[in-house]
């Protein structure tokens, strides 16, 4: 067999390799469908991180209401917790939920949204040194922290 006779086979082989490489590249660029149980695990770890931020704000509000810490130190602690919470929530909300996980997404984002609202209210009250606002925010923050704490059991 001559080298010339081998050429068509080689070019077919090359074309097949190129097509496979192109398909692999295209599949790597596509958004993965994902596994609903992994998505739920991500939701649980997100709510756990969010609980940490919200519980921090609850402690700050209690210490500030009892005049145990300075306004500026309380403001800084609440603002830092809020930034962390917003980042945590934003990362989760940016994830593409797999089919069959919409209810997990709905419930988790609701919990996170409630937490962000409660923490924002706390930040406003602390910065204004508004005692009544801080007491109201403490109720909302405590409720949100409890809900986030129970998320591993309550998420579908």
């Amino acid at each position, binding site marked *: 067999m001559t080298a010339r006779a081998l050429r068509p086979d080689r070019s077919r082989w090359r074309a097949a390799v190129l097509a496979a490489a192109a398909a692999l590249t295209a599949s790597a660029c596509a958004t993965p469908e994902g596994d609903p149980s992994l998505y739920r695990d991500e939701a649980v*770890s997100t709510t*756990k*991180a969010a*609980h*940490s931020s919200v*519980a*921090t704000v*609850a*402690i*700050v509000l209690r*210490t500030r209401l009892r*005049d*145990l*810490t*300075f306004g*500026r*130190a309380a*403001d*800084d*602690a609440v*603002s*830092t*917790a809020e930034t*962390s919470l917003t980042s945590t929530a934003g990362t989760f909300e940016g994830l593409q939920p797999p089919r069959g996980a919409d209810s997990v997404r709905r419930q988790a984002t609701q919990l996170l949204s409630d937490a962000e609202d409660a923490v924002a209210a706390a930040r406003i009250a602390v910065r204004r040194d508004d005692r009544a606002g801080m007491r109201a925010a403490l109720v909302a923050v405590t409720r949100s922290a409890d809900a986030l*704490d129970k998320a591993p059991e309550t998420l579908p």
Partner: protein
Amino acid sequence: MKKIFAVALGILTAIGGFVDIGDLVTNALVGSRFGLSLAWVVVVGVIGIVVFSEMSGRVAAISGRATFDLVRERLGPRIGLANLLASMGVTFLTFIAEIGGVALAIEIATSVNEVLWVPVVAAALWIVLWRVRFSVLENVFGLVGLALVVFAVALWKLDPDWGALWAQVTSFSPGADNTWTQYCYYAVALFGAALTPYEVFFFSSGGVEEHWGEKDVGTMRLNVFLGFPLGGALSLAVAAVTAVVFLPAGVEVESLSQVPLPVAIALGKIGVAIALLGFFAATFGAACETGLSVGYSIAQFYGWSWGKFVAPRQAARFHAVILLSTLVAVAVLLTTVDPVAVTEYSVVFSALALPLTYLPILVIANDPDYMGERVNGRLANVLGSVYLVVILVVAVAAIPLMILTRGGQ
């Protein structure tokens, strides 16, 4: 009387100067997440830093030269360069973290974003490093750093269940909410925080700055044997208060602003004020030490004139390195990188660099050409060798654990 005062001052500054941003953040984080189940790592780390600081202090006192001044001469330029790159890289990362830590401490007190404080802190730091005498710099920040004793007082005032705390200490396990890989990762981080390379750089170079001689070995040993363990106890107090307040509440420490909260609960505003003063002194003092250590390491490797015991004009290249390092650190921090994240990575990379820092100390402390009759005794060599094995294991495990746990998550 003067001698007793000097010894007491040395011990107190060793205690106050022991804690830095790495110890503060890592101990607070570990306490809030693992309770006191990793307290044994702090004990192991403190014994390690005592062993190697005593060796490097003795080398400085007997030879009149800093340990790393001798590394290139004794071990050759290749090992000297490896030692320089590893140790100086980690020290520079720690320097960035310390400047960020000072800015964070001021942010807590003023509620003005830390990024705005970074250039101010850096300018103040550079002026201090350029103008202030070494003994003033060391004693003032070391003594004011003693304000961190407020964490031990807060622990006592919180009146915890001491039996439960002791049960945590002796549990040696990650608990229900963490995995063993996470436990091991934070063990490496705590070990790295206790044995940061700059501490021996600074200690041995400081000995030369203060003109230690053979007669000062006893005083140096008292500082090391009493001051460092008591400084380690301060680190444990930080971990303990976060274990008491944050662990049951499900709060994980991720910012410096959370760390004074247990003190606020126990002692109120006065406690918070003292804690913030302690944060400032500990981080500013450590920023001075790391900044000087970057200059020491490069100047000693290249054989330049170095130190604050000579006029800045006589050590121009040493001061230029410090100035350049400060400017680069500011540039890094102005990218808005989180200083706490820099701290967390610096302590892990510190663990990675430990063998290249501590092996040369052991070699030089055993060399009679430099040490005469003051070479290592049997105990120092047994402890040094055991710690080298531990350090190697920690260094090998550091990066795989970081990848496996995604930085401890």
